[in-house]
């Protein structure tokens, strides 16, 4: 199969999936007993039928579901995700405002988490069944078993409240003006603008939430790296490499780890869903104004247009990531080319 044909085929397959995602998001938001009116109008307005009627008409709650879905779909095609009932702003604009904070946080979490995870995994596999292996295994098991919100609270209470080493919740000290937006990432922006005070503050504030996320990520990565490397080290080509008289270091890093990392890379791609779980909880504890906090506020106030917008965006990113992964497989796996 030629590459353009392969892309086309994969692309056509994602269309029903994307349509399905919009249907599910719409169904969840609409086929529900909860009434957004109760959550979003003040108590005295609830007794006034006129206000309720205006509210219903404004948000299209008086039209039949199919019509509402088609309107929604039409708006989507124009890049209009609707308006949040709570913030009263376009959801696309809200997401654009909240997303950079999440990207900043999860980048730190992934980088340190994957780095530490691979390091611990390799140590654990190389000195298999030694004291250090048991130590790493138990630590990583604790890492994946500890509720991330407890980890966040512990870190905050020890390093912020008790020791006072690091600043508390929030992305930037309220007394410091955030840097003017270039990328939306505070650390990068403040550096580019030469605002060292903001840079120092935002960087320090990234440490606690970033490392909480990294702890969680590294637990998962360490476990996978360990078992994958153990499997690879049992292969014939490792014995051959050793028989050739290569240094143990070369055998493990060049012949072992390189092959063992293939499943790890796959998992890192899939982990983005887990990361999001982590960031929703971490962002709500560290008052981190990211997409997780936005989603959390939307769910507690039954702001369904916003819930729909965010869950759809996230599902679409997932579909996009998988699409890219499939394209990569075209180059990695020769069987696809020949099929």
């Amino acid at each position, binding site marked *: 199969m030629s590459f353009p044909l392969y892309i086309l085929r994969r692309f056509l397959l994602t269309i029903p999936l994307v349509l399905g995602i919009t249907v599910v998001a719409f169904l969840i*938001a609409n086929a529900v007993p909860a009434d957004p009116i109760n959550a979003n109008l003040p108590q005295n307005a609830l007794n006034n039928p006129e206000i309720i009627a205006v509210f219903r008409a404004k948000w299209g709650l008086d039209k039949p579901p199919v019509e509402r879905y088609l309107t929604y779909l039409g708006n989507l095609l124009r890049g209009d995700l609707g308006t949040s009932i709570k913030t009263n702003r376009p959801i696309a604009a809200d997401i654009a405002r909240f997303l950079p904070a999440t990207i900043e946080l999860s980048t730190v979490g992934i980088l340190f988490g994957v780095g530490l995870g691979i390091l611990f995994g390799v140590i654990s596999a190389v000195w298999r069944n030694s004291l250090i292996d048991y130590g790493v295994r138990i630590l990583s098991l604790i890492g994946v078993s500890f509720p991330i919100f407890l980890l966040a*609270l512990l870190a905050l209470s020890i390093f912020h409240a008790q020791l006072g080493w690091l600043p508390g919740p929030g992305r930037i000290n309220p007394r410091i003006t955030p840097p003017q937006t270039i990328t939306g990432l505070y650390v990068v922006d403040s550096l580019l603008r030469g605002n060292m005070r903001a840079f120092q503050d935002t960087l320090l504030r990234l440490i606690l939430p970033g490392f909480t996320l990294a702890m969680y990520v590294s637990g998962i990565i360490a476990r996978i790296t360990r078992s994958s490397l153990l*499997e690879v080290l049992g292969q014939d080509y490792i014995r051959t490499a050793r028989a050739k008289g290569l240094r143990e270091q070369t055998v493990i890093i060049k012949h072992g780890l390189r092959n063992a990392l293939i499943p790890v890379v796959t998992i890192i791609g899939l982990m983005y869903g887990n990361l999001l779980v982590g960031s*929703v909880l971490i962002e*709500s504890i560290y008052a981190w104004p990211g997409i997780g906090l936005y989603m959390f506020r939307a*769910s507690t106030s039954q702001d369904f247009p916003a819930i729909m917008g965010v*869950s759809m965006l996230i599902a679409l990113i*997932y*579909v996009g990531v998988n699409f890219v992964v499939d394209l990569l497989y075209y180059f990695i796996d020769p069987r696809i080319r020949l099929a």
Partner: protein
Amino acid sequence: MSLTYSTTSLTRASVWRKRWEDVAHHLRRNPIVVAGLTVVIVWCVLGLLASVIAPYDPLAQNTKALKQPPSVSHIMGTDELGRDMFTRVLYGARITIPAGLQTVTFGSLVGIIVGSLAGYLGGLFDEILMRITELFMAFPTIVLAMAVTAALGPDVNHAVFALVIVWWPSYARMIRGLVLDAKSREYVEAARSVGASGFYILTRTILPNCIAPALILATLDIGNAILTFAGLSFLGLGAAPERAEWGRMVSIGIDTFDQWWIWLYPGVAIALLVMAFNFIGDGLRDLLDPRLRR
């Protein structure tokens, strides 16, 4: 030498004894599994006997003893409404353990039904079911669960329902693969040749061979289900506010940071239980994956 091995020695009882010896042997070699099992059993007993052990009523407020640190009368202190923390932590087991088990049980049941139908019937039916499965997998667990609980309102059963919705697809995928594999085996061919019905073939010959991997996945999964459930509750989307639920109790900690006993004890309770289930799951996987056993 005469071959006088008696076939009658392979009675049902001796087969079971052999199996039990196998299990006991592996348990002895896996102290971690034993530790996990012990902790889970202890939590179950504590939860069952909560009304007997607990010194107070889990909902009884005491305005004279707000946010008291641990003392003789309240060994884990009291929370922001003067409720006894020890009592509430004990009662928490009654909510969390069933919630985790229910999520995994119902999630795997739905997954097994969908996956086996898709794998067995094949064709267009398979195509449609698998596309639906992929659709649900596209939403990250917590986001879909948050959307569902936001729609239904905070309640333990609603949270479990939301978790089942996000839980079944991975089981459906795995079972489908196993059924596809088993479908082409000789014993299925044999059953078909003697005129067995499709339903009989699926439930009596194919599924029994696919259940073991599903069980392992389920055991490995209970810890995860409990964590996600606690996370939902932490966000205020699980148990109703007044219930003694662990995740909910930890969430109070955001406002009562310095009164560490209010959030630390229920948090550690979650961690202990999840760790115990993960210990069991890990041991089980090592046991059944011969590549990792040496």
